[in-house]
């Protein structure tokens, strides 16, 4: 089993988490929380040692090659801030292209192209399968919905990856956005992994079902138009039964 801990000291109570310690070092904690942390640090050598660690700057090792950005050598993370405007413009252009190329106008179309990748995951193909249960029958690739149908989303993504997800539905004439499922946590990838929960579709207008799958948590942004928030949003449009 494991060797002895690096430090013999143990916390006197409930350890302060690294997130708390880092936020404390950055001065981000509210005053009352900061006072609580200070009091604990004064009494606990183990947490005080960690707090000291959190205040230490992270120095890049010499083996990391940094491309020159202007005359001064800057940390790599600053390069992203410096290149922000350019990257944002490129991202917007890419999102625009995806909006056009993945137009929801084709009912029931799978807006997933081979080679679609998960953000930050090399070679991460992802595919969406919308499954409908209608009067006891399971229908794959259904193109129409009825009020009593139950819908589930199956995601295929590279095994060994863990991804975050969310499902967004725009239905009814007003195209109101709702989030019918509760993404309680990330999923382990595989073939046709069912997202937890099921939902129904209603209204007399076509409904758009969008699934966001990403390597990072997917924030909800209902005010934005489909496809703008995240290029990894995959949408399918289904029509009401006539």
């Amino acid at each position, binding site marked *: *089993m*494991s*060797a002895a*801990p*690096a*430090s013999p000291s143990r*916390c006197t109570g409930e*350890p*302060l*988490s*690294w*997130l*708390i310690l*880092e*936020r404390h*070092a*950055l001065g*981000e904690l509210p005053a009352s929380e900061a006072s609580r942390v200070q009091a604990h640090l004064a009494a606990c050598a*183990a*947490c005080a*040692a*960690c707090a000291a*660690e*959190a205040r*230490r700057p*992270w120095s*890049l*090792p010499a*083996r*990391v090659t940094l491309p020159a950005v202007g005359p001064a050598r800057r*940390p*790599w*993370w*600053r390069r*992203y*801030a410096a*290149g*922000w405007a350019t*990257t*944002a413009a490129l*991202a917007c252009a890419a999102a625009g292209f995806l909006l056009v190329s993945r137009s929801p106008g084709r009912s029931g179309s799978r807006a997933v192209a081979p080679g679609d990748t998960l*953000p*930050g*995951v090399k070679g991460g193909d992802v595919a969406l399968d919308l499954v409908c249960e209608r009067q006891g029958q399971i229908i794959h690739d259904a193109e129409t919905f009825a009020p009593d149908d139950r819908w589930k989303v199956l995601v295929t993504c590279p095994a*060994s*990856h*863990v*991804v*975050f997800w969310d499902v967004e539905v725009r239905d009814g004439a007003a195209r109101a956005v709702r989030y019918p499922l509760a*993404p*309680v*946590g*990330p*999923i*382990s990838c595989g073939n046709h992994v069912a997202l937890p929960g099921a939902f129904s579709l209603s209204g007399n207008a076509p409904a758009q079902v969008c699934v966001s799958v990403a*390597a*990072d*948590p997917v*924030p909800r942004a209902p005010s934005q138009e489909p496809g703008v928030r*995240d290029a990894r949003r995959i949408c399918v449009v289904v029509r009401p039964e006539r």
Partner: protein
Amino acid sequence: MDPLGRYAPALCRKAYRLLGNAADAEDVVQSVFAEQVQRGRANADLPYLFRAVTSRCLNLLRDRGNRQRLLQRQEPALRGATRTRCDDEVIGMDLMLKVVDRVDAACAEALIYRYFDDMTQDEIAEVQEVTRKTVAARLARVHEVVVALVGTGEAGGGGP
């Protein structure tokens, strides 16, 4: 300072605790930042970025191709004090990898927050956006697996 640059040291330390070496930790943080910039979220807060880094690290750790390299490159002596233990067991990289193989993604994430980031159940609930009860159930599952691994002598080394 821009938010991402402001949080870089904290995130590198976080990834380092989990991956055991600085080079991989920096690569993970770099990829998270690149992703944030690409998505237009340069103002992400630290709890969100903590979760993003956790997810990236877990992806790296789940890839068996990376494991041997990570185990060889880890510098456990530099991990620092281990303040939170599971039944008095230090969850080192080797044990963590075995547990991660046996639990679902949400439990693996909770494991990292609890035993590597020293978060309380309330903090984990906030970060994972679930109830404390759900967190308790996830950690109970982790505990169950750790106990089984230790009981069968499979736990191995790797702890600091």
